[in-house]
C-alpha cells in the first residue's frame, strides 16, 4: 500500500423513491489495497459500486474516487478507473485483438501504445495463438483473465471487479486471484465484490453490507476474532442472523 487514499466515502447515501439502497456508508480504501466489498444480493453493493464508478449520482453524502469528486467529476473518474463485471466483459463476436484495440481506442491510447501493450498482454497470458479467435470461442476462465487484463489496459489507478470469478473451477479462480495480487503489488488499488466467502480471505480488508449499511469492516483476521469465527462464512452468518431471524 502506498499511503494514499484511493476511495473515500462519507455518509454516502442513495435513495430510489421510498427505498434507501445505500444508507450513509463511510469508508476509506487505501491505495494499492485489495478491498473486498461483500454483502448479500440486494444489500446495496451494486448501487454503491455504481456511485464509485461514476455511473450513478449519490442522493447525499460525499465521495472521492482517485481524488475526483463523484458529483462533479464523473468523467474524470471514468478515465482513471478500470471496470470488469461478470455479466459483461468483452464483445463475443469480436476477436481478442479487436476487443483490445477497441478498448484501447475508447480509453484514448495511441495506436503504438495499443499495439505494444496488446502484444505484452497476450504473451503474459499465453494467448498469442488465440489472438484472432472470437471471444465467444474462449472458455469462461480465459475470458475472465482476458477481461481483467483489458480493464487494466490504460493503467488505471483503481480497478473495480464485480463478481469476477463466477462459474469456474477452483484452480482457475485461484489463478485469477494471483493476477489480482500481482496487480495490487504493482500499486493498483483493487475493489472486488464476490459472493465466495473464501475469496474474502484473500483481501487485505473487507466490508460487509447489510440492508444498505456497512455491518462490519476490517481485515479478515480482525473480523474472525471479533465474531469468534473460524471462517468468513461463519462471520457472515453471525453478522446477518441477529437482524434477520428467519427472513422471508
Amino acid at each position, binding site marked *: 500500500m502506498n499511503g494514499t487514499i484511493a476511495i473515500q466515502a462519507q455518509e454516502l447515501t442513495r435513495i430510489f423513491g421510498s427505498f434507501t439502497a445505500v444508507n450513509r456508508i463511510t469508508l476509506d480504501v487505501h491505495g494499492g489495497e485489495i478491498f473486498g466489498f461483500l454483502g448479500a444480493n440486494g444489500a446495496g453493493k451494486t448501487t454503491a459500486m455504481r456511485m464509485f464508478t461514476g455511473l450513478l449520482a449519490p442522493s447525499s453524502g460525499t465521495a472521492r474516487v482517485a481524488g475526483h469528486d463523484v458529483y462533479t467529476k464523473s468523467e474524470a473518474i471514468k478515465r482513471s478507473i478500470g471496470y470488469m463485471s461478470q455479466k459483461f466483459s468483452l*464483445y463475443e*463476436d*469480436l476477436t481478442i485483438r*479487436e476487443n483490445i484495440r*477497441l478498448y*484501447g*481506442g*475508447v480509453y*484514448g491510447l*495511441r495506436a503504438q501504445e495499443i499495439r505494444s501493450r496488446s502484444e505484452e498482454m497476450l504473451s503474459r497470458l499465453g494467448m498469442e495463438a488465440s489472438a484472432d479467435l472470437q471471444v465467444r470461442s474462449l472458455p469462461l476462465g480465459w475470458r475472465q483473465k482476458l477481461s481483467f487484463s483489458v480493464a487494466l489496459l490504460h493503467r488505471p489507478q483503481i480497478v473495480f471487479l464485480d463478481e469476477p470469478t463466477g462459474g469456474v473451477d477452483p484452480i482457475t479462480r485461484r489463478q485469477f486471484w494471483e493476477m489480482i495480487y500481482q496487480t495490487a503489488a504493482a500499486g493498483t488499488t483493487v475493489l472486488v465484490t464476490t459472493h465466495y466467502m473464501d475469496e474474502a480471505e484473500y483481501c487485505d480488508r473487507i466490508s460487509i453490507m447489510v440492508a444498505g449499511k456497512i455491518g462490519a469492516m476490517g481485515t479478515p483476521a480482525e473480523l474472525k476474532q471479533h465474531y469468534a469465527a473460524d471462517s468468513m462464512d461463519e462471520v457472515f452468518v453471525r453478522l446477518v442472523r441477529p437482524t434477520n431471524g428467519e427472513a422471508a
Partner: protein
Amino acid sequence: MNALRGLLQKEWRHIMRDRRTLAVIILMPVVQVILFGFAIRTDVRDIRLVVVDPTPDHVTLEIRHRLEATDAFHTVAVLPNSEKLDGLFQRGQAEEAVVFEPQFASRLERGLPARVDVIADATEPNTGSTRQNYAMAVIRQYQQEQGEPAPGVQISAQLRTRFDPTAESSHLFVPGLMAFVLTIISALMTAISLTREKETGTMEALLVSPLRPWQIIIGKVLPYLAIGFVSVVLVIIEARIVFEVPLRGSVVLLLLEGLLYILVSLSLGMLISSRTSSQRVAMMGAMIGTMLPTMLLSGFIFPIESMPTVLQGVSNVIPAKWFVTIARSIMLKGIGLSYLWQETLILCGMAAALLVLSTRSFHTRLE
C-alpha cells in the same frame, strides 16, 4: 477520434457477423415491395370489361375490337341489355362497362348523336377514373379517325360505387378492421404466454409433471378465449356506436363467429410460440405472421378480386379473409348461417388444424 473510429469498426463488425439479422434487414424491404406492389396495383391492365351492345353493327364492333386489342381490357361478357350489369359489378366480376345505345351506326349515318356510356367501378376512385379515361381515349381515337362531324359519338362517363344500400365506406371498412385487430391481439396473447413460461423457467417444472401437451395448450387457450370474447363484444359495440355500422343479421351469430375466429388466432399464436423460447421472437412472429397478411390479403383494405390470381389463392389461407366476409355479410347484408356455413366450416377446420399442429410441435422436453 481513435475512440470514435473504434466504435464505428465495432458496430460494423457486429452487423456483419450477425448473418440472420442482416438477411432479414436486406431481404424484408425487397419482399415487402413485391407484396405491396402487387396487392396495390393501380395499373390499367387486364380491366374486366363488360360490353352492352343491343344492336351490334360495324361501328360498335369496330370500337369493341379496338378496346379488346389493347392490353388494358379483357372482355368478360357481352350483354344484349343492362339487366345483368349491376349483378356483375356487385359480384366483382366486372370492373368497367361500355354501354352502346341501340342503332348506333345508323344514328351516326343519319347525323344523330349516338350515346355510349362508360361505367367504372369506383371502389378505388383514382383507379376508376383512370379506367374510364382509357376507354374514352380509345373511343375518341376512333372518332377522330372517322373525321365525324358534330354531333357524332357522344360519350357519357359515369362512376358507380359497388352495391351497398348505405354507400358508406366505413361500413365496408370497419368489419375488416375488427378482424384485423382481433387477429393481432389473439395471436400475441398466446405467443407471449407460452414463451414467457419458457423464459422465466416455469416451463421446466410443468414439463416434468404428468401433464400432456394438449392439456397445457388447452389450458392456455381457453382462458384467453374468454378474454377474447370480451374484446369481440367491445369491438362490435364500438362499430355500432362510433361508426354506426348497421347490424342487419343475427347478433348471436356474429358473436359466435367472432369467438370462432379468436380461437383460430389463438391457435395460430400457440403454433408460432411452440417453435421458439424467446418472447421477443414470438411477439415479432405473431405480429408479422398476422399483421401483414391480414392487412394486405384479407380484403379489408384492398379488394381481393383486383389481385393477381396467385395472391387470390394465397388469400384463401388467411383466416382473416373468411372472417371479413362473414362479418360483412352478417352486418351489412343480414345473411344467416345457411349461406355462411361454408366459410364457418373453413374457420372450424383452420382452428382444428392449428391446434393439432401446435400439439404435435409442442416439445415435451426442453429442446
